[in-house]
């Protein structure tokens, strides 16, 4: 039985420059030869990464007060409506919000441009009150003029996600990209063995307060994400099949980089945003070593027909086959393509590896573990 370590002990090693830090891909390759016990002895931290479209994202912003002050009630940024139903000059920019007819430009683009340091047109109106007399404002803002830009994303970093195919004779335009007719292609969207929550499937080391790489800077896990579901079936390698756990993330968008936050538009679907997330996994014991050794061949997900109204499950595919460029469904080969960038996910895992290796990024034990759930509620039509 190999030695157990605490996060505090790992941090001491990091600070003394002696910690062994590898990316999840490196440790997965190492796992072909080494046993979990050997890896638990040798490796202290494993870094993960993902860079994919994550619609449930957005940013709180505080514009600062005008003179005389104003309680902004209707706000647009570059003509994109933002949520103003909070205090006077606070707002929330939802990534997917758009202003018709310009449905290819939305909140995600405003967020990316703010991070890039560009000027954005702020327009707001209000009824005017005794304490906030001003009724309208039109001006330019940028990240230097506003007080806070706090990215808070209610659902990021899905633990696993479906493969999308289309059985119908017509092209389907979805958030899983353009699906060619009659099973002409299959798309998928996680970084497989490099993906954060696939390396700690039971979330032993990831919880509330976990320090992470977020959009190019340091961020934190704020809570479990929306639609958090730990009730999904797991395969023989302990990996949930299909979309399961999620994370709510928070970080300072003023410090983020457009290298890791990019606006996107999916044809005939809408605006979304690519978010870069990297999470370090402390190798506390042999069980964690076994988890991070997981390989693409051991991670599976459901193949879903996005052409059927009920999104029928048609089969199952491993990430090894998905990354190979081809899956087989009912005896027929289907060309596969990713939607999340493995290239950038690798860059994130490598940056995190170097940051930890050089002692600039320390690990955190969760303030609270996530509670387990048994499934999700559907929305019943009760009227």
């Amino acid at each position: 039985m190999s030695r157990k370590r605490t996060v505090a002990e790992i941090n001491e090693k990091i600070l003394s420059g002696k910690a062994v830090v590898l990316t999840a891909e490196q440790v997965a390759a190492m796992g072909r030869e080494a046993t979990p016990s050997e890896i638990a002895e040798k490796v202290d931290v494993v870094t993960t990464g993902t860079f994919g479209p994550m619609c449930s994202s957005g940013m709180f912003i505080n514009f600062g007060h005008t003179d005389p002050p104003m309680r902004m009630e209707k706000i647009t940024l570059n003509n994109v409506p933002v949520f103003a139903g909070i205090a006077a000059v606070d707002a929330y920019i939802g990534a997917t919000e758009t202003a018709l007819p310009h449905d290819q430009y939305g909140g995600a683009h405003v967020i990316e441009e703010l991070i890039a340091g560009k000027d954005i047109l702020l327009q707001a109106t209000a009824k005017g009150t005794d304490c906030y007399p001003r009724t309208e404002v039109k001006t330019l803002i940028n990240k230097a003029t506003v007080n806070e830009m706090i990215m808070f994303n209610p659902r990021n970093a899905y633990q696993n996600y479906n493969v999308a195919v289309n059985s119908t004779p017509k092209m389907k335009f979805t958030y899983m990209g353009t699906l060619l007719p009659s099973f002409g292609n299959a798309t998928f969207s996680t970084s497989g063995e490099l993906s954060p929550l696939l390396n700690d499937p039971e979330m032993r080391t990831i919880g509330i307060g976990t320090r992470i790489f977020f959009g190019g800077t340091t961020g934190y896990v704020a809570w479990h994400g929306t639609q958090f579901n730990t009730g999904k079936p797991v395969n023989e390698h302990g990996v949930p099949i299909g979309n399961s756990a999620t994370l709510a993330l928070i970080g300072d968008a003023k410090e983020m980089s457009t290298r890791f936050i990019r606006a996107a538009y999916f044809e005939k679907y809408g605006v979304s945003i690519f978010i870069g997330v990297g999470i370090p996994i402390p190798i506390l014991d042999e069980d964690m070593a076994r988890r991070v050794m997981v390989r693409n061949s051991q991670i599976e997900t459901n193949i879903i027909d996005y052409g059927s109204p009920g999104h029928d499950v048609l089969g199952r595919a491993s990430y090894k086959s998905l990354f190979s460029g081809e899956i087989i469904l009912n005896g027929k080969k289907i060309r596969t393509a990713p939607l999340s960038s493995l290239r950038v996910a690798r860059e994130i895992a490598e940056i995190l590896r170097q940051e930890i290796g050089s002692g600039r990024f320390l690990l955190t034990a969760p303030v609270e573990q996530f509670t387990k759930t048994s499934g999700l509620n559907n929305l019943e039509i009760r009227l």
Partner: protein
Amino acid sequence: MKSRRFVLTFPPEATGEPITYNLIRKFDIMVNIVKADVTPGQVGHLVMEMTAPSKVLKEGMEYMKQQNVECVPIDRKITYSQDLCVHCGACSAVCFAGALTMNRTTAELVFDPEKCVMCELCLTACPLKLFDIDLG
């Protein structure tokens, strides 16, 4: 005599007409098939070079139009802003011609313009809108 490359797009509901045969027999167009991707019941694509006097080429194109076969000359080419690309792979999903593929080792997008059949699906499939048509 004029030689031009075209992308022919066949509707899933084929007319049953032997299009290529008729182009050769009825119009005396010299045909060289560069690439074919035709499956019954699906949208089909054919890239071919056609050689004939301009007038005859025009008649051949008119004939194809009557048969609901879209015929687009490849004088144009696809370009993309490589420096802004995040290598997500969404464009490779729709590129049946195999011009846009993911390198399995580097996980980077590879664009081979020689294989492009100008279907233009990448223009809309790219979530960052990095593809464009160069009209030459």
